[in-house]
């Protein structure tokens, strides 16, 4: 049987220049203000050029997957908040989706609308923070970051009213949402959403035409589409290379089919494209919110067949995935009929997106490594779990 010939995508090999024959090995170590958490990159430099880069992580490994094997399905839900700690509601949704696939629950309409509203608010505040951190690393000293955090605080206040906690929301349940919307919450969401286009305009006025941003990010950290697909990149990083793959449009999960929104795609796959994709995705999220908030129907918020305690799904397995702000967040569950999962696996978008960090950084200057790494937009809680 002959094997099909296929192309393997391996990182390029950079030869050091002839003048210097000693490479400077730097550990851009776990304690570093721009590593988005405890993350190390073992970088070998020839002058200023990066010749070799190996990422090292595991400093935040909390063995979430093993804890889930001895805890019930419900008890793992608060731990999913702490994976990508910026976007706890989308983590909850991904886990709830996987369990609903495993057990065959139907989610009522009102709960689906609430899920979409909270997920899009999460996406907006995540992208705003990501842009803020990226420009902080370029040297913008926190101005765009603090403007982003001002909007983020408004959104987190909404989450606190709804779920009780700003970041560790623990709100989705298998078959719906935990608690009904408080009185007047939708009006407050509408007020925040009305103020968002002005905030995005301000951010664009501050950043998009800025010459320093353009000089530092255009043409830097280019990722080609075929490598991106083969390396399993998802999320804004993939769409910046030009590949049209947004799981909200592909899998038709939840009720995203009812909303008209576009998927922005990039041309070059460099840092500037990733920044622009995030800005445009924020605008599209505002569009979704403007359509979802008036339309939300009355009704129950939980599937009547689902149980809170003593939940024992049938034997089998399921893989459920959503378009989290960072990429494709998937949960793979194997059930053996008891109240604890036999195998609980988180497919972390941040970890997979780091596969090509080496490819993007080789041959670039060491100052650009920090920017490229910031444009990948990772959260260590998700990489290490």
């Amino acid at each position, binding site marked *: 049987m002959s094997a099909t010939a296929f192309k393997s995508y391996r990182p390029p090999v950079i030869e050091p220049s002839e003048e210097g024959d000693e490479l400077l090995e730097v550990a851009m170590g776990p304690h570093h203000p721009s590593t988005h958490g405890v993350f190390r990159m073992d970088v070998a430099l020839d002058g200023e050029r990066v010749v070799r880069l190996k990422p090292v992580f595991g400093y935040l490994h909390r063995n979430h997957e093993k804890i889930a094997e001895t805890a019930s399905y419900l008890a793992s839900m608060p731990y999913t908040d702490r994976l990508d700690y910026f976007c706890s509601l989308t983590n909850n949704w991904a886990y709830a989706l996987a369990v609903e696939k495993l057990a065959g629950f139907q989610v009522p309409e009102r709960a689906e609308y609430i899920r979409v509203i909270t997920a899009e608010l999460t996406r907006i505040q995540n992208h705003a923070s990501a842009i803020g951190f990226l420009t902080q690393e370029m040297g913008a000293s926190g101005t765009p970051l603090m*403007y982003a955090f001002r909007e983020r605080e408004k959104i987190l206040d909404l989450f606190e009213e709804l779920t009780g906690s700003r970041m560790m929301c*623990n709100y989705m349940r298998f078959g719906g949402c935990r608690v009904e919307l408080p009185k007047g919450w939708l009006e407050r969401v509408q007020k925040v959403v009305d103020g968002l286009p002005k905030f995005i305009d301000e951010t664009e006025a*501050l950043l*998009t035409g800025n010459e320093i941003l353009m000089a530092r990010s255009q043409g830097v950290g280019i990722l080609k589409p075929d490598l991106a697909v083969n390396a399993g990149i998802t999320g804004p990083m993939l769409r910046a290379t030009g590949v049209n793959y947004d799981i909200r449009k592909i899998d038709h999960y939840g009720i995203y089919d009812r909303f008209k929104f576009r998927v922005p795609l990039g041309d070059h796959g460099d840092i500037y494209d990733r920044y622009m994709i995030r800005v445009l995705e924020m605008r599209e999220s505002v569009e979704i919110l403007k359509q979802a908030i008036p339309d939300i129907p009355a009704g129950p918020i939980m599937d009547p067949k689902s149980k809170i305690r003593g939940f024992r799904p049938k034997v089998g397995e399921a893989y459920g995935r959503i378009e989290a702000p960072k990429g494709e967040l998937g949960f793979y569950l194997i059930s053996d009929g008891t109240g604890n999962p036999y195998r609980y696996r988180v497919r972390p978008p941040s970890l997979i997106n780091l596969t090509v960090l080496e490819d993007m950084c080789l041959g670039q200057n060491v100052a650009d490594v920090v920017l490229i790494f910031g444009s990948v937009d990772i959260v260590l809680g998700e990489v290490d779990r």
Partner: protein
Amino acid sequence: MLGEGMLKGLAETAENFAGSFVSKERMTTVQYPEERIAPIENTRDFPFLIFDGTDPLAGLRCVACQICEKECPPKCIYITKSTDKKPDFVGKPQNYPTRFDIDISVCMSCQICVEVCPFEAIKMDTQFELSTTDRFGGLLLDRDQLSRSNEYYNEIHPTEAAEVDARLAEEKVKAEAKAKAAAEAAAAKAAAAAAAPPAVTAPPKEPIAKEPGA
């Protein structure tokens, strides 16, 4: 011209800077701890046990069913059930916890204990300034430190507390109606028994004497 983008950005920053002197929107910093923002009603920090009335032990709603202990994800609740019983808010004798400790250095405020409690006995507090210098015992709150009255619960979470009180009042009315119906049925049965003639009973049997050594 070159630099136009940067000038536009600087204009944006200047607008924010000047605006922060005149509008609250732009100046969002609150000088904590001198100024505080009013807490949001639904916020949750750490659990507490509710008691009705004024006596923390007699009015404690918790019946030590240990469901919250089993469901707690980081297992930070320790309960010891009592061997005797005391009457609850409808008068039925129930166990109570002789020990109910929560280790708030482990508690992650997930609210699952509140969700699974069938007796509305444990709720979430809103206090977060709980730091202490005692490393080993200071963050292990025991039953007396955790007990708060229902009036306190109504103060911190008015909407939720009103809902819970309404539900418990409803249950109490139902339980009383049921007890009344049962009492009436028993009284009717006793009256019927007293009216009927006494039944003929067999004479008591003589005990068979056993010879020692048989």
